[in-house]
């Protein structure tokens, strides 16, 4: 048992660190904007091009498609190191992490050679469109229709929660092609040009005031049949494969609020005394210290399996399931300690640029994005523990006879 890198891993890590030291502006001149800002996008593009040119982009992709044919563990080491620097790494994670593998697995050779290197270099930006207003946790209940017309498909419907749709050049799209079949059986996957007529993107304002994702509307949008990914009505299998790839994006521990809290609590004074001298604060802090250590050590075990060539299973859900509520609770606890000043969100005036105020407002989103806490628990219960599936009233029923979405309110 060894918690440290193998010699090979250590050498690779050194190479990565050396390059990062040379190529990252450690002064952090990045703009403050979130993912919705044009400035952030251009910074992200610039970074992606830089790592592409240096040969670090899309590490695990084959060389001919713009990657470097590296092992998963090298991808992880890269991510671990780059996360220590102020960069826009991860800005294109969904496109590169999910859409890339979809094209790699289901596209034809011409498409792969044309599209993948452009994606790796951020020449094209991609988005993924699965969820709909009536199909969230129950994503296979989606209704966006694709109907065959000669060698083209005509798409009508609406997608939601689509990150980066506002500037995406391409998107991967899951549609319903046969509503007479059972829910999971009548779906088909495509990719499409997002700039074509009939595609309309509208931003969604989130509860925290930000706008990281969008609604996308399709009105008689045409997709050539050669842009179909996988079999007609075989889209659910394609979606599962794509989501499986997502699990490899486990490089960083999901945000849990701990590093910021730990920095804060060691400095904080309460009534003229260090906060950690207070019995309650000290022991509460110890509980989170232990939880954070558990996440870190669980990840180390998972990475050990990845280093041996394994693929993380559904247990990879653990980081998000624990980290997201932890982030919410930590930010709430920090605000409580800050008393009145917790109510003020002025960055210039409040402790640590109002990080805890912001986290308090964005943490509810972490508990929903990429699968709710409840879906994560179902995944662990059914796929890891092998518990029996829930009773399903829609099982085997043709899709067009199933009730879905909000029946009461629009």
């Amino acid at each position, binding site marked *: 048992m060894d918690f440290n890198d193998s010699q090979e891993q250590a050498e690779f890590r050194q190479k990565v660190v050396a390059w990062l030291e040379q190529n990252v502006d450690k002064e952090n001149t990045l703009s403050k904007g979130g993912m919705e800002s044009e400035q952030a996008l251009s910074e992200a593009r610039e970074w992606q091009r830089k790592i592409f040119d240096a040969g670090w982009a899309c590490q695990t992709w084959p060389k001919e498609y713009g990657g470097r044919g590296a092992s998963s563990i090298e991808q992880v080491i890269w991510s671990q190191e780059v996360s220590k620097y102020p960069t826009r790494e991860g800005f294109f994670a969904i496109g590169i992490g999910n859409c890339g593998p979809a094209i790699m697995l289901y596209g034809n050779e011409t498409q792969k050679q044309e599209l993948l290197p452009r994606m790796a270099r951020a020449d094209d930006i991609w988005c993924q469109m699965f969820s709909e207003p009536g199909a969230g946790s129950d994503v296979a209940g989606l209704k966006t229709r694709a109907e065959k017309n000669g060698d083209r498909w005509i798409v009508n419907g609406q997608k939601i929660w689509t990150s980066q749709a506002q500037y995406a050049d391409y998107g991967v799209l899951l549609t319903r092609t046969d509503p007479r079949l059972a829910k999971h059986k009548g779906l088909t996957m495509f990719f499409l040009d997002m700039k074509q007529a009939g595609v309309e993107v509208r931003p969604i304002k989130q509860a925290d005031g930000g706008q990281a994702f969008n609604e996308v509307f399709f009105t008689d949008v045409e997709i050539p049949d050669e842009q179909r990914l996988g079999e007609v009505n075989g889209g659910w299998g394609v979606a599962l494969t794509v989501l499986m790839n997502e699990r490899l994006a486990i490089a960083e521990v999901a945000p849990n609020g701990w590093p910021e809290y730990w920095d804060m609590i060691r400095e904080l004074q309460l009534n003229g005394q260090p906060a950690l001298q207070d019995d309650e604060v000290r022991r509460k*802090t110890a*509980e989170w210290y*232990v939880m954070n250590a558990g996440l870190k*050590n669980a990840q180390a*075990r998972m990475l050990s*399996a990845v280093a041996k060539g394994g693929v993380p299973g559904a247990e990879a859900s653990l980081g998000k399931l624990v980290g997201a509520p932890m982030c919410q609770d930590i930010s709430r606890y920090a605000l409580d300690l800050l008393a009145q000043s917790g109510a003020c969100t002025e960055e210039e005036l409040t402790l640590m640029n109002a990080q805890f105020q912001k986290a308090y407002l964005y943490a509810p989103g972490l508990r929903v994005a990429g699968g709710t806490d409840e879906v*994560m628990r179902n995944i662990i219960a*059914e796929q890891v523990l092998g*518990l029996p599936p829930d*009773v399903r009233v829609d099982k085997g029923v043709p899709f067009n006879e199933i009730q879905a979405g909000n029946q009461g309110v629009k």
Partner: protein
Amino acid sequence: MNFEFSDDQRMIQDQARSFLTEHSPLARVREVLDRDSLDDNSFDLDLWNGLLELGWAGVAIPEHYGGLGLGYLELCVIAEELGRSLAAVPFSSSVYLAAEAILLAGSDEQKQQWLPKIASGEVIASIAFAENLGGVALSAPAVSVSSAGLLNGSKLPVCDGAAADLLLVSAINDYGKSGWYLVTANANGLTRKSLSCIDPSRSVAGVTFSNTPAEPICSARSAESLQADLFNRAAVLFAFEQVGGAQACLDMAREYTTQRYAFGRQIGSFQALKHKMADMFVVIELARSNAYYGAWALSSGAGSLTEAAAVARISATDAYYQCSKENMQAHGGMGYTWELDCHLYYRRAQYLSSLLGSQAYWKDRLMEEVA
């Protein structure tokens, strides 16, 4: 990074599991639990002899002190299996606590004298530090030791105190300095009495000393500082027992809720129970991962053992409590009967939790170390 046990260590674990499945089924644990009188044998003697033959008590004791000299990682995987099987033996007292204390602080002569006997099982040993049923003042034990080396006073509860042949006892001398002392159970003036225990498949006793001869161990260190180091080592090993027990609870809950039908369906198909079991899985994974970190720190000497041990201890204690209570809950009314085994784990969870310092003690030590 290779944060995993080796194939050889896994093989030792598999062998331990097979052995315990055969020789320590829950029916055997119950024979100890259900014994008529506290004075009857307080542990499973056949199982104890069987695991001694396999050399388990000496796994981490160096060869020149009569052990197998394998190491802590090997002891950790065995501990997990002992915890899973609820083995009714004084292993933790003799091996994780007494042997480790002697290894940590004994003179070479003391090591030569006692470790081979603990490894072979000729001697069962334990430690005695608690003195009353209200909290413990480690820096100032009430048991006194005279300048002639005679102990006076009482310790309780002492884990496996009635079975032990050798005790390590904390005491204070005439100058107000505390330390640890070796006492044999047959020494003059030592009397002991089994006490009823929250987990009757294990045991506690009260031990009284009346001018009982004792020999100091590492007189240079205070009782408190030696105990802190000893607890670090033991906490990692206890954590593996706790994780093993917690995993057994989840396995039991999973099996029962898959076989039990209500409202026309397997109760394990209800999300209320699925989510409960998913949460059990999560706390076990976190606790197991922290225990691994503890095992690495203990075996390699790298990092801070206080940090690693505290983290392993806190999460394993919480995990075992959560899993043992929720396993009982998942079994409904049957879970609350003596007949079903749920309470065996619930009892053991608290026994292991009680013996090695409260959660508050460990949280304070953790923060003192890292903040």
